[in-house]
């Protein structure tokens, strides 16, 4: 039983690794956390995390470049129902398509496109700490103070996932209008914010993911 953080060359996974280890420890869970680019290890993992920073197309190409990784993810997550967490561009990759610079197919686990944030008059990227407005309850938000007076999550992005099915949208952040913060469907969940950089909220959210039985 382990947690696999998928390494496909997108940014630093060192602090994500440490954050998941600390959340597991604080939750009293004996779960080894591994950063891996080995599809077999991903296939064996009990839980899978797909991080990602940078541009959608670059991340997609990076994921494609790891031989067998997409198949391992499809098999583990889609067919065997393993709990999956996508973070930032890792979350955006769950969409049908990315429209950043060029049109690139995503994993199509959450129907919708990844397009630019529309926030006239506001700074882009949406960078910094924002609160979460919850549209529907989700086990990963259990025990977390949300809403305008709740805890904050750390965002840094210029594009967002526009989910086609409103039922897939769990939470938004308010930035000149609603910005997708959490999407979920069955055993998959994705956060636009960085739980591994979100201090109190982040560690609690990760602990919930590690305990989650979808």
């Amino acid at each position, binding site marked *: 039983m382990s947690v696999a953080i998928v390494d496909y060359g997108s*940014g630093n996974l060192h*602090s994500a690794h440490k954050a998941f280890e*600390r959340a597991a420890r604080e939750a009293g869970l004996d779960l080894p956390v591994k950063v891996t680019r080995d599809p077999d290890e991903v296939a064996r993992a009990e839980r899978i995390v797909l991080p990602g920073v*940078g541009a959608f197309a670059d991340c997609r190409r990076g994921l494609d470049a790891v031989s067998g990784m997409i198949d391992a993810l499809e098999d583990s997550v889609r067919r065997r129902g393993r709990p999956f967490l996508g973070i930032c561009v890792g979350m955006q990759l769950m969409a049908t398509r990315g429209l950043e610079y060029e049109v690139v197919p995503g994993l199509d686990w959450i129907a919708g496109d990844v397009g630019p944030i529309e926030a006239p008059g506001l700074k882009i*990227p949406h*960078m910094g700490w*924002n609160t979460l407005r919850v549209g529907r309850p989700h086990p990963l938000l259990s025990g977390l103070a949300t809403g305008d007076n709740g*805890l904050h999550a750390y965002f840094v992005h210029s594009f967002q996932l526009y989910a086609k099915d409103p039922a897939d949208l769990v939470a938004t952040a308010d930035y000149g209008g609603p910005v997708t913060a959490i999407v979920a469907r069955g055993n998959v969940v994705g956060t636009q914010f960085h739980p591994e950089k979100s201090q109190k909220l982040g560690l609690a959210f990760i602990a919930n993911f590690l305990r989650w039985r979808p």
Partner: protein
Amino acid sequence: MLKARVIPCLDVKDGRVVKGVNFVNLRDAGDPVECAVAYDEAGADELCFLDIAASHEDRGTLMDVVRRTAEVCFMPLTVGGGVRTLDDIRNLLLAGADKASINSAAVADRDFVRAAAEKFGSQCVVVAIDAKQAPTAPGEAPRWEIFTHGGRRPTGIDPIAYAREVAALGAGEILLTSMDRDGARTGFDIALTRAVADAVTIPVIASGGVGTLDHLVAGVKDGHASAVLAASIFHFGEFTIRQAKQRMAAAGVPMRMD
């Protein structure tokens, strides 16, 4: 609602924290990793390391500091100082930094900003601008000039035009320091901060000159900065991060009080 950010900046030299007053008279303010943990627990919104010895000395010590910090701090970390090549950025990101701050290298070669943003994404490319007010005739509007190499080298470049340029090239954020105010504790150069913040659509971090908590308020309310950076007022225990945020919140600036 997005909150304004308070960012303590640790000037690092030989693996130790120092804070220069106008970049001389260095004082030792401790171990950077310990400071980072303290600021993480105190509710800092981000942390910034500036390697002030980067031009001359081995970067291994800094990488070690970044690596150890990333293991214990779960908030965003920006590292600057001596970032000249894509490999420098890659190494910082691999060590655990979230953003790399580019200064002189971007002035020397704007294309470096574009290459960095294309390679690693705008979200991790901070362009640092060090500016001084230029002498003007009475009645003339204020002008500023960018200086590089720790404030020693004038460039003749206007920081406002430059900010627009690097934003268009893919910079994700601007760290704007007034060299006139740095260490002077008389407050940010508000006119400069507002001129740059209003000229670009990316966030601007105000830096240089903080001596009181009201200076932080002014940086956001009057300077239109998205974040405020300070060093000595926090390092020497004059004010806590929480006091800073409370003062800003009381003045009507949206703050994260988690």
